């Protein structure tokens, strides 16, 4: 007999979210029309094919999302992502139990994989045991960037074919946020993960029709999709175009209907909408930040004063103008409001190193450098290593010019992508500007990935016991108001320690033709690519 009989639900402290399927309604006004193929900009052929769990790049998530479903997802029709906008996909209902230590999902019974096999709780257990590298996991991912998201999961139980329970070591309300991300699809247990690098078998609204490498990826409507009447579109075509001018010319001429998330700068967006007023611009947020990696495992950045000085030297507001032409916002380690829900308030930000008035901050930076033993006679010499991609180089050039103003002799070293991550992981660098994208706007997803001791993506090697304790404490806090305060404290501590100085958060300037309806950019580029609700008004 199942330990969790359906009729005997125990409501979690935060309440039960009971959403049957996708109840979101289309945008106000018109009735959706069925039909048509959406032509979608794609940056490159998806690395690792459709195996979303094996990458950390939007290039795979964007074309992969229509093929899959999650247990839960952020409502595609709501721009802001939070606990309140999570809706069910493969899970009809879910329930927190035992003071947020157990998360029970009651699964839909009418779901089939694209090859006709039925979806059951076995697929969920298989997927997340694989991702968390459970001792009894059936398979192992070749590359596993988000293992740390599930570090708190003790075991996953497929109680019956349509019930699955995540047993946690301690309370963690953020687990639901991470499961709602575009980075958390459910894989088929009967298909080896390696196969998903060349083809796609999911439960999603669209089935893969053809992937012509380097040319296009075609999807067709899934006629057996469990949400009746969806999708509206007959198909999707993702077209990889590398050359920036060509891709936006293609959008402007109507060869493409929608852009690729995060691709259009403010300047490009303004130019395109001016040239073609029928293209709509939506300003949202990417949940991607520019930050500065300082290798804390070696001199000089093992000295907190030197790190603070570097952070103070950078005029973040000038970076927003110089590097992004105004298309970014200043914030600490979590996305600032109104784009994120956890960001520090302006008044708290202003008091942190590097966030005050530029002239004052630079003066403080010089003073700190002198205290650390660096001055005009003995200048600090820093080699800025960064990937040899324009968006990284632009940022690096700005940072170098800022550092020179406080007497730091900074030079640029461009590193090819193939060498960058090995170098960063092995901490064989001094400093380097970096971009970091985070799936959901969630403290656990961000902190455990980028700041936790020993995390493979903690490139700086920053490891502070007190901070780890603060991160763990906020993760377990169930009172939202208390938790926000705790998260603010973590952010302040990270900026005070200059663990990984934040420079800015990139805004999204999303372009699409006006006849494309219900493709609503979210505050993170990683979570709204399902295409289930999208329709064409033409």
């Amino acid at each position, binding site marked *: 007999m199942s330990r969790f009989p359906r009729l005997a639900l125990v409501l979690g402290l935060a309440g039960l979210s009971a959403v049957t399927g996708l109840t979101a309604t289309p945008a106000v006004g018109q009735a959706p029309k069925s039909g048509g193929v959406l032509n979608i900009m794609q940056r490159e052929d998806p690395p690792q094919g459709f195996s979303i769990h094996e990458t950390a790049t939007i290039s795979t998530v964007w074309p992969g999302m229509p093929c899959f479903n999650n247990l839960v997802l952020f409502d595609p029709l709501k721009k802001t992502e939070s606990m309140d906008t999570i809706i069910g996909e493969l899970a009809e209902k879910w329930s927190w139990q035992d003071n947020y230590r157990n998360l029970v999902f009651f699964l839909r019974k009418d779901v089939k994989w694209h090859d006709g096999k039925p979806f059951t709780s076995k697929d969920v257990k298989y997927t997340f045991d694989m991702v968390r590298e459970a001792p009894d996991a059936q398979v192992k991912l070749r*590359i596993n960037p988000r293992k740390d998201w599930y570090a708190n999961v003790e075991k996953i139980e497929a109680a019956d074919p349509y019930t699955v329970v995540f047993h946690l070591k301690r309370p963690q309300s953020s687990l639901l946020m991470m499961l709602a991300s575009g980075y958390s699809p459910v894989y088929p247990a009967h298909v080896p993960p390696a196969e998903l690098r060349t083809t796609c078998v999911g439960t999603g609204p669209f089935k893969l029709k053809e992937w012509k490498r380097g040319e296009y990826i075609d999807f067709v409507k899934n006629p057996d999709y469990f949400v009746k009447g969806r999708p509206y579109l007959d198909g999707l075509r993702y077209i990889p*175009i*590398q050359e920036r001018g060509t891709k936006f010319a293609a959008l402007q*001429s*109507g060869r493409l209907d929608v852009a690729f998330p995060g691709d259009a700068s403010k300047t490009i967006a303004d130019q395109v909408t001016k*040239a073609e007023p029928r293209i709509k611009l939506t300003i949202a947020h990417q949940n991607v930040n520019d930050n500065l990696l300082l290798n804390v495992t070696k001199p000089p950045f093992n000295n907190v004063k030197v790190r603070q000085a570097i952070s103070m030297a950078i005029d973040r507001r000038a970076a927003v103008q110089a590097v992004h032409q105004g298309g970014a916002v200043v914030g600490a380690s979590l996305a600032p409001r109104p784009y994120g829900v956890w960001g520090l308030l302006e008044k708290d930000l202003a008091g942190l190193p590097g966030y005050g008035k530029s002239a004052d901050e630079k003066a403080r930076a010089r003073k700190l450098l002198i205290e650390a033993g660096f001055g005009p006679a003995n200048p600090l010499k820093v080699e800025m290593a960064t990937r040899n991609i324009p968006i990284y180089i632009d940022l690096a050039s700005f940072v170098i010019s800022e550092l020179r103003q406080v007497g730091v002799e900074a030079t640029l070293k461009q590193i090819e992508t193939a060498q960058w991550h090995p170098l960063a992981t092995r901490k064989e660098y001094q400093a380097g500007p970096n971009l970091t994208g985070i799936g959901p706007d969630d403290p656990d997803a961000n902190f455990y990935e980028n700041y936790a001791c020993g995390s493979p993506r903690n490139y700086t090697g920053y490891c502070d016991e007190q901070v780890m304790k603060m991160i763990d404490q906020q993760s377990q806090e169930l009172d939202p108001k208390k938790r926000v305060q705790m998260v603010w404290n973590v952010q302040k501590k990270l900026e005070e320690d200059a663990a990984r100085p934040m420079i800015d958060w990139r805004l999204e300037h999303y372009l699409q033709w006006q006849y494309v309806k219900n493709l609503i950019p979210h505050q993170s580029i990683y979570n709204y690519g399902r295409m289930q609700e999208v329709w064409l008004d033409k």
Partner: protein
Amino acid sequence: MSLVIFVLLRLAPGNMVDILFSTGGYVSESDKAAIEKELGIDRPIWVQYVDWLRDMATGKLGKSYRYDLPAWELIKPLIPVTVELAVLSTIIAILLGVPTGVISAVRQDTSLDYVLRVFSLAGLSMPSFWLGMVIILALVAWIGWIPPITYVSPAENFKIHLVQFLLPALAVGYRSSALITRITRSALLEVMREDYIRTAWAKGQSGRIVIWRHALKNAMLPVITVIGIEFAFLIGGLVVTETVFNLPGVARFLVQAILWRDYPIVQNIVMFIAIVVVLSNLLVDLLYGWFDPRVRYG
């Protein structure tokens, strides 16, 4: 040649596995070792080389590390795209370059000659990819249209296929024609100073016969050489044009494979380019014989 390709590739720092991990934003040394073993790239280079040679000899061209598909399956459909673009570009270059060079030589030091020389110099100065980009931007700005951004085969729609290839071929052909114009002009000027040409004029032959039948035929040898070199260069050199016009050709794929350290793909494409270079040089040598009967082989 094969040894050079093989070794040079592996001298570049990093390998495919580093790229794979970069898509995940981290590197795990233990997992990296496992994947290198899976792909066979952990073996000594000489072992990999011998295996590759043996596979080539038996017609096995390997598997793409990135796509996990047979290399030939990926490369085969791309070859006609690049070859067609190269051939069209060369035809345009010849059709534009030779007559322009002839006119420029015949009308030496006239205003027409100066105009044509500036025209050809502009072609030499403008990178073809830049010209391609300007064409696309001009089209979208003036008429709100650009050629299709996915490949349309001749069987699907010949008219659209032609339009799709004509624009990039014009951009590349114009640049190549510039060189052909200059070579044709200087070669023709040299030939036209020969005694037999003066004799032909003295005999009252028409200008058309003197220039096109006598002079040009003898001036063509250096022009053919340049055409052959340009064509061979185009096969690998079309990468940026293919990128700008989003054509799925071999040249673009080669650069992507290099960035991805996809050794089987790079090795196969480079060998293909080497074969094309050899064949085009052979064709040029054979054409010498046709243009100049004094050149005999065998």
